[in-house]
């Protein structure tokens, strides 16, 4: 039963992966000024040399033919070779993917933690003021441009207090230590995560409040279970279901955020790879990074679906 549902969902993602790959391919290849043109500024590179390189890279073929070739190869696991690094695109991307997942994953966990804590405080606070302060703080977190807050974090914690390093994933050349790793990870993860706290807070809060109004909580309270305990025990699972749904939808936003955070904190992730390869017009890598991001998002959506149907088996919704 479950597996048939799963297979159906997985197969259902194929058309959209195909369509978006086609859109992206056109978007990347249509405009003038290709990978070979970045050399044209150097007078030692003659126009004939530029044309020769374009031909060698197969960029003079019709676009549809190029897309066909790309697709055919991509399906068999050959995502082409980087024009500038001249390694397989999958190798180039693999070097960065885990780093981005580590950063976004940690940011997600931290923001969920903060969201739950703030949400509980906000929901249990009897006064309207508590609620407003919690909401206000959380929303401010998502409203500050991350490249600015990130720089301020560096300025304060790295330069002024000297608590954390200036960037990177670990101290280069030092032997391994958990403290070192965590001190590098903490700042970018907090800055990236701060953007999402507001949303999680909202879901937790409204989930809790909804439950607190219901009869069985009142009954539970009447039975002598504490207000807090009763609310959390029933309220948190209730809040978790809508939260799980949104998690999947938020995956692309999280990656968008990581693209900026990675530059600020010199984090060697996919976002920076995308920026660099866009500037170098490294089409195969641009395409590769984008498709990996698409696959990550699709996977996140699928996991959300499965988690959702697992949490609430009545739902097998076909969106």
């Amino acid at each position, binding site marked *: 039963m479950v597996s048939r549902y799963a297979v159906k969902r997985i197969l259902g993602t194929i058309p959209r992966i195909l369509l978006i790959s086609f859109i992206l391919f056109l978007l990347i290849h249509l405009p003038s000024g290709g990978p070979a043109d970045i050399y044209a500024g150097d007078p030692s590179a003659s126009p004939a040399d530029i044309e020769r390189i374009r031909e060698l890279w197969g960029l003079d073929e019709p676009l549809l033919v190029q897309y066909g070739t790309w697709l055919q190869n991509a399906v068999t696991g050959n995502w082409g070779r980087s024009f500038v690094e001249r390694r397989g695109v999958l190798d180039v991307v693999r070097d960065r993917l885990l780093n981005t997942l580590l950063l976004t994953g940690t940011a997600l966990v931290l923001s969920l933690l903060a969201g739950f804590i703030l949400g509980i405080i906000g929901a249990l606070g009897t006064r309207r003021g508590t609620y407003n302060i919690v909401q206000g703080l959380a929303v401010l977190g998502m409203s500050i441009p991350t490249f600015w807050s990130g720089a301020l974090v560096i300025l304060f914690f790295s330069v002024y207090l000297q608590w954390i390093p200036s960037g990177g994933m670990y101290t280069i050349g030092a032997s391994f230590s958990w403290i070192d790793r965590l001190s590098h990870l903490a700042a970018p993860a907090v800055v990236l995560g701060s953007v999402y706290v507001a949303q999680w807070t909202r879901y937790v809060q409204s989930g809790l409040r909804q439950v607190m109004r219901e009869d069985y909580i009142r009954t539970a309270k009447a039975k002598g279970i504490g207000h807090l305990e009763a609310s959390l025990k029933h309220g948190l699972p209730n809040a978790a279901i809508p939260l799980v749904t949104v998690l999947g*939808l938020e995956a692309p936003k999280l990656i968008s955020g990581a693209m900026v955070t990675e530059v600020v904190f010199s984090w060697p992730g996919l976002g920076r790879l995308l920026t660099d390869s866009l*500037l170098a017009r490294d089409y195969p890598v641009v395409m590769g990074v984008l498709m990996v991001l698409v696959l990550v998002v699709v996977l996140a959506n699928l996991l959300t679906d499965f988690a959702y149907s697992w949490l609430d088996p009545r739902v097998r919704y076909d969106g």
Partner: protein
Amino acid sequence: MRHILLRRFTKETLAIIGLFVLAVFVLAAIFAPFITPVDPNRVNPREMLRPPSSSHWMGTDDIGRDVFSRLLYAGRASLSLGVGVALVSVGLGGALGALAGFSEGWIDALVSLLIDSILSVPILALAMVASAFIDLTPWRLILILALSSWPTTARLVRGQVLQLKQLTYVEAAHAIGATRLRVLFRHIVPNTLGVVSVSASLLVAYAILIESALSFLGFGVPPPTATWGGMLYGAQLYYREAPWLAVFPGLSITLVVASINFLGEGLKRIVGPT
């Protein structure tokens, strides 16, 4: 009905604060030429990086332009960019979403496929790819951001329409022979306006933030148009020596985005209390 909405609104402290702050920024942007006589693009290289003073309330930037008047005019650009993106995006998303929800069948399948496809690319990545490959103008940027953000609205509207169609009065209207178009415009469109307006207001905020991120990555609105994002990006070389360069545009973005979010959240609760 209206009174109830208004009374509900007065309970939303944060939304009221948001509305007030937003109003200040919008008015400042509209009346910029009356508030400051100084040309925002007036360069004075011999007067650069001056701290706030009585002649330059917010100091001068790295080529001696008055930060205060740039801030006002940048507000115009940033807010219109946000509103522009929201309008185009919501218009497109609303239309396609309604179309899909209403017609079902293969049109629905096609639109839904397009929605899912575009939603599976991080919006910043999509906007960056698009803006890296064309000559950017403010209008094109609006178009790029709208084209990458409409599916969110479309998905919402489609869901709403599908739900509304099940409602009895819509079915009844069908039964008494109202044309499909009439049903759409008389019964369905007005009922989705609430969702759409919330989603539009949040888009304004999101567009302002995305533009600042694009500026930072080197793909933002080109000069001479100043945006808050562009100003903040230009300030990053001077966080230490001239912090006022970053503080004012940074705060403007933060306050406006937060205000819009408060307002949007308030609206959401008023329009459809859960």
